[in-house]
């Protein structure tokens, strides 16, 4: 049996469908990522799986427990790091973790051992007695991760664990998650809108858009599933009629998209296509204003499956994606 299984799980807020009939399974020991822009339904999905909101339709099991009928069993099995920082700023690192250990009924002896281990794992031993308000954003996130693991859950949910962190802190959180996962064969489900986070950290990634699951596989396979090994982004001073058709016939080109003189060219051989493109443009008297060649990313995967760029979508924050502001009525 999979550690997490959803079947046609759906959440509607009046006439708005936040999560639409999503089915997937996460195996033990996997790091599974939900990738999508704000408002895609990632947080709503994770809240249903962590028993914070009930689904409107469909079902889900976590650790073998039904999220509606056996919510208490789910809660005993999971550790959760919500999107918002939920540590008490006035309490010390150790006190924050201690309170949650008591809420989970961890014995005094086990608490001592786990506290030491976890503080070492998140590299906060020397900050143990400092109030959380004095820590940086990255350190606070690490406190929450330690807090979420103090009762030794088998499944760990993290809702956008690195949002708002600087690049160095993000990498530190990734490293720490990898270490924790390797140590205890933890199953991790995280949401993110960072492509590199999903790419580098997750064993498998589910891409969500407008409440729908649009693709699911390992980052490698997702990137391989779309045309081209490289993506050329090119802009021209002007383009004559039939220019797209001519670009489509260049060596190794698999797909050309774009408009208004800015194009994305999927190519099986980036260097060869670049060379041919420059020669064609020079021959036609067209100035190439900018050109970049890059390997296929999950952003390209997102573009392929949704027709839009993920980074553009990130600008549109959904009012339904902000913690307690969720509508209360189903």
């Amino acid at each position, binding site marked *: 049996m999979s550690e997490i299984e959803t079947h046609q799980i759906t959440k509607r807020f009046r006439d708005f469908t936040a999560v639409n009939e999503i089915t997937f399974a996460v195996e033990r020991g996997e790091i599974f990522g939900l990738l999508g822009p704000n408002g895609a339904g990632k947080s709503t999905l994770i809240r249903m799986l962590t028993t914070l909101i*009930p689904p409107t339709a469909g079902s889900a099991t976590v650790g073998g427990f039904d999220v509606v009928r056996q919510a208490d069993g789910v809660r005993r099995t999971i550790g*959760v790091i919500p*999107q918002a920082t939920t540590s008490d700023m006035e309490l010390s690192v150790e006190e924050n973790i201690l309170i949650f250990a*008591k809420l989970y*009924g961890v014995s005094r002896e086990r608490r001592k051992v786990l506290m030491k281990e976890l503080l070492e794992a998140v590299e906060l031993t020397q900050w143990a007695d400092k109030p959380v308000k004095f820590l940086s954003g990255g350190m606070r996130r690490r406190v929450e991760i330690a807090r979420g693991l103090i009762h030794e859950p088998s499944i760990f949910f993290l809702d956008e664990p690195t949002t708002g962190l600087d690049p160095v802190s993000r990498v530190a959180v990734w490293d720490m998650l990898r270490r924790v996962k390797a140590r205890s064969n933890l199953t991790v489900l995280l949401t993110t809108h960072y492509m590199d986070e999903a790419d580098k950290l997750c064993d498998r990634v589910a891409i969500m858009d407008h409440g729908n699951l649009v693709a699911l596989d390992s980052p490698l396979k997702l990137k391989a599933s779309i045309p081209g090994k490289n993506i050329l982004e090119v802009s021209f001073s002007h383009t004559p009629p039939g220019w797209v058709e001519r670009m489509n016939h260049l060596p190794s080109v698999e797909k050309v998209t774009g408009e208004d003189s800015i194009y994305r060219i999927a190519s099986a051989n980036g260097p060869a296509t670049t060379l041919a493109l420059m020669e064609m443009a020079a021959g036609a008297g067209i100035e190439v204003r900018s050109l970049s060649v890059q390997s296929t990313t999950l952003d390209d995967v997102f573009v392929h499956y949704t027709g839009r760029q993920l980074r553009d979508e990130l600008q549109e924050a959904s009012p339904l994606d902000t913690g307690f502001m969720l509508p209360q009525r189903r």
Partner: protein
Amino acid sequence: MRRTLAIVERELRRFRRTPLLIAVSMIFPIVQLVVLGYAFGGSLKNLKIGIVDQDHGLPGVKIRELAGAIAANARTFQTIEYADPGQALADLRNGRINGVLNIPPGFSRRTLTQQSPRIALIEDNADNFVAGALNSSLGGLVRAYNQQLVGVPRIDSQVTLDVVEIYPYVPYIQYLLPGSIVMSIFMMVMIGGGIIYIDDKARGLHEGYLVTPITKFELIMGFNLSGAIKAVLAGSVLMTIGSLIAGIPDPFEPLRMMRVFVVIVATSLALVSMMFLFMVRVSDPLLPRAVFGVLNTLLFFPSGAVYPPQAFPGWMQVIAAIDPFTYAVHAFKNLLLKDTGITAIAGDLGYLVAFSVVTMTAATLLFRRTL
């Protein structure tokens, strides 16, 4: 129970780190006790009364002498002589004086011929307290004048009332102390309980609790207990400081202190349970701040903390009858002002405990275990 205690521990650890909160919640009730206690506690002095003697006879002079004696001794009012009644009334209307004592023409003649002599007090009744003080003072003046009249027979069959006071004189500041103790408990319940609870909720802190196996009852119980402990601390501190400020006789007598402590605990539980019932479905951090003043007025004033509830209109007596403040104030008055035993406050304690059970049960039923 372990999880309930974890919530209590967390709340109290935070409370210990925010001493300012304790100070803020204590300042208002202490200031109120001192300012209201001394402002309302004393008798009125140095009111201004205009005297218009249109009679100029000996009995009229006698009245003026008696008024002068009050001005010199009790100093309830100062007298200002007016020759023109019109000018006196104009000054009364303009607020320069508080009343006019008019000795009409023919007063002496009517006195000597025993034809129901009358003098008039024209008063500014826009201020009931001032009007009441002048009535009382000049009523005493007239009684004193009547006793001095020569030839007035003593009527032995007249009934007289002898007043026996069973408690020592209670200054207003002492009368106000029970209300101030309840106010300090309420302040702590609102600031240290309600406002922090909603702020935490808005910050998403409760999301951390809701994903743990804690039950609704354990969670509400944890919040209630921690809120009640903070409120008991506030009530105890104000009881101690307030008793010293108000001059409660023998304030630290152990048995009475123990009884007062029991009432503080019952009051704290009742108010914190009521507050959680109000806040259980609230998410907007502005709401508890907005209702704070309304609740304060609605609960404090009808309780009899500043004025006897017997004087209230019917609708306010209904509020007073369900208001937990009423029972807390009544119990504290019995213990602090009358030094009664537990029997005298058993009804109050019973109501406060029953109120706590009902409101906490309702809050638990209304609490949502999901977002």
